[in-house]
């Protein structure tokens, strides 16, 4: 499974668990409009660290703030390489 596929599958799974209606995931979809709240994003980050072995948010000195789904995916693609 590619990093992108893992990230997207995790987003879909967590949205489902928290009964959030998720619009189709496109790279330019703003995270704020995804229906995911900050707690969902925290769960996604924790699960991805478990699955991919990386957490781009903890390893960075400064706060990283991806705006879109595409930026979020890219953070993980960059961190995994």
């Amino acid at each position, binding site marked *: 499974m590619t990093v992108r596929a893992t990230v997207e599958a995790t987003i879909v799974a967590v949205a489902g*668990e*928290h009964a959030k209606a998720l619009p189709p995931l496109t790279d330019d979809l703003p995270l704020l409009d995804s229906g995911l709240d900050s*707690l969902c994003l*925290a*769960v996604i980050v*924790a*699960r991805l*660290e*478990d699955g991919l072995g990386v957490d781009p948010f*903890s390893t960075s000195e400064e706060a990283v703030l991806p705006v879109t789904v595409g930026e979020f995916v890219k953070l993980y693609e960059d961190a995994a390489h």
Partner: protein
Amino acid sequence: MRNVVVTGGTRGLGIAIARKLAADGYRAIAVARQQNDHFAACVQQAEATAPGSLRFAAFDLNDIAFIPKFVASLSEEFGPLHGLVNNAGLGTSGILATLADPQIERLLRLNVTSPITLTKYAVRAMMVGGAGGRIVNISSVVASTGYSGLSVYAASKAALAGFTRSLAREIGPLGITVNCVAPGFVDTDMTGGMKPAQRAQIIRRSALRRLPDAKDVAAAVAFLVSDAAGNVTGTTVTVDAGNTA
């Protein structure tokens, strides 16, 4: 066996909590820098009745930078984490005006920053598991009353009470409960330095005319960790024989 981590779990209140949880069917993982003879004897006893129910994990909770790795190693060795009991702490006493500055910092680091950071990573592990969880913070009655010579300790315990309430709201939607137990003065190593006159005064001022013991505190913790406490979160259970009633 569901895993519950008990910091400072090799002596004092911590060992009473760990033993109670082990007896209740959990795997209690006692975290401390090192084991001691009494703890080793308790492990042997636990092995005879419920193998694996009382375990030890060596870690210095002052090493905050290594907490993420430590929590990962616990998950690797024992599996998913059900609960965390933040019990470890320093009981430094002294008049504020003459307390050494590094002592103040050390106390706040071990009693506040360390349990908050440990909780952060334990909660993340619980998020991965997706099965809810339990956080119990050991506060103290001095978080809400006053006792001369314990101002910094009291500040650290009040910090845990505030931390408890807000975190309970934050992670409640995940089925993770966060509560405090506030013991009164309990006879342990930590309170060993108390003068007999002080002890007598506390007893005289307690509704039940006695001090609670470590088992009373352990029973309250075990309740909050249990399934029966599934609808209890963001609160403090006081176990002080009525000292603050």
